[in-house]
């Protein structure tokens, strides 16, 4: 079925779900949600729900993949079969393979891998419900899980997607805005350092729009970062 494009920016300037262009969706973060994993986190951006687990540093398996001078990061972004509108086949899609790489590279920039030569750090991201922004939610969760596992990092990684819908730049697009919008730009940064570790653009932007979109992302990521620190604090300092 092809659907008609819905109205994404209403006459009052608000988005289809009532948010202002610069609003994030309601965000929930919880750290240490799994018993077996060395570190874990559950992060929700609106209806998008992602869980991440970290195992390691541990012995590389098989051993010959080990790196002499740093930890090897193994990263898998994976979607549960029931996470998508139509059931997803469990076999890794090309999209999942690409996103596993993009997320791994974002984390490589943050983790002090040189502290653990010859070991493996495994990052497993499972999308439980997908409603737009799963890769950025997954990256945000993964960096919390790494912190929960006690793995030293230059900084946490906070990520969010900005988009252009009905000609307007908006923060934290959901699935509907992604599907019918003009651009989707996932951004992951180390907020304290201000550095960009993930950046993709799917869509069309003028150079000027691109700069404004990046500004918008930075603004939103300040809040995401605050929530990340709060979630870690809740687990480690408040006895929750």
């Amino acid at each position, binding site marked *: 079925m092809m659907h008609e494009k819905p109205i994404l920016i209403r006459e009052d300037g608000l988005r289809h779900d009532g948010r202002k262009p610069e609003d994030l969706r309601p965000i929930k973060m919880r750290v240490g949600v*799994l*018993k*077996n994993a060395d570190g874990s986190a559950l992060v929700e951006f609106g209806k998008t729900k992602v869980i991440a687990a970290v*195992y390691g540093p541990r012995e590389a398996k098989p051993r010959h993949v080990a790196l002499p001078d740093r930890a090897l990061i193994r990263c898998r972004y994976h979607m549960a*079969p*029931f996470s998508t509108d139509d059931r997803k086949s469990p076999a890794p899609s090309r999209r999942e393979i690409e996103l596993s790489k993009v997320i791994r590279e974002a984390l490589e920039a943050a983790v002090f891998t040189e502290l653990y030569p010859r070991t493996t750090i495994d990052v*497993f991201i499972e999308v439980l419900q997908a409603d737009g922004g799963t890769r950025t939610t997954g990256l945000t969760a993964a960096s919390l899980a790494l912190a929960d596992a006690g793995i030293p990092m230059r900084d946490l990684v906070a990520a969010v997607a900005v988009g252009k819908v009905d000609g307007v730049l908006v923060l934290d697009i959901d699935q509907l805005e992604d599907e019918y919008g003009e651009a989707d730009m996932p951004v992951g940064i180390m907020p304290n350092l201000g550095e960009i570790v993930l950046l993709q653009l799917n869509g069309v932007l003028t150079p000027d729009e691109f700069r404004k979109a990046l500004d918008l992302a930075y603004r939103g990521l300040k809040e995401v970062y605050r929530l990340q620190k709060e979630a870690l604090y809740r687990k480690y300092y408040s006895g929750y």
Partner: protein
Amino acid sequence: MSLTPYEFSTVPRLRKLQVINSLRKGARIDGRGFEDYRKITIELGTIPKAAGSALVRIGDTTVLVGVKTEIGEPYRDRPLEGVLQVHAEFVPLASPTFEPGPPDENAIETARVIDRSLREPRAIKLEELTIVPGRKVWIVFNDIYLLDHNGNIVDTSMLATMAALRTARLPRVVSVEGDTVIIDKSTREKPLPVQLSVVIVSVAKINGYLLVDPNIDEESVLDAKLMIGVDEKGRIVGMQKTGQRSFTRSEVDQAIELALKKAGELHTFLNQALAGR
């Protein structure tokens, strides 16, 4: 090809001794009695985008089940019935010993044991899932997602499956013209036709002792295990022996008695959880 699992050979002797010594004293390493389950929690509707879903924990073992439905064709030898597919994924997130990849023999066995315990007693009225006889039916995917593996995956998965199926609702069929069926995916209307509730009770044998709901330490040293499917009428609707050792006949009889008793409790617990929504 099935291989003797490596873990079986490398369980630390100390752990084995602890488990057994504990049983000899009439208790289990985590303090439970032989017939006690760990604490069970059932969360319904965890995945609102699915037709039905449930997150079930038995102790720290956590299973999420999501039910999806789509329109498809019936099996050729069952033209007047919908299709139920049960799959299980043991994702590497759930255990330090799991690796990514297609389902291994353990995940496949889990899915198939649960599938048969639903199919054989006709827990779902599949004939009510027909839309165009012989041509178009509902396909129901019951996906078992193991999130944290701390023993007794099958009982947990069966509970989560039952909770998800019993709360699942089908989208509205907007129109049917010839073989073209239009549905409105955003809706959740008619409940899935579940006519019978089933639970599975796994009874482990360790050094001659029989106990329910083995935790992961107990599983690592058990001799054999009997997974027993029991419906709400107290009938046995499936069974599977697993593990590398044997049962005597009288052990099997005891295991079944134990399973029937615990199954009643699980059914009651599940019904309460579903009534409470």
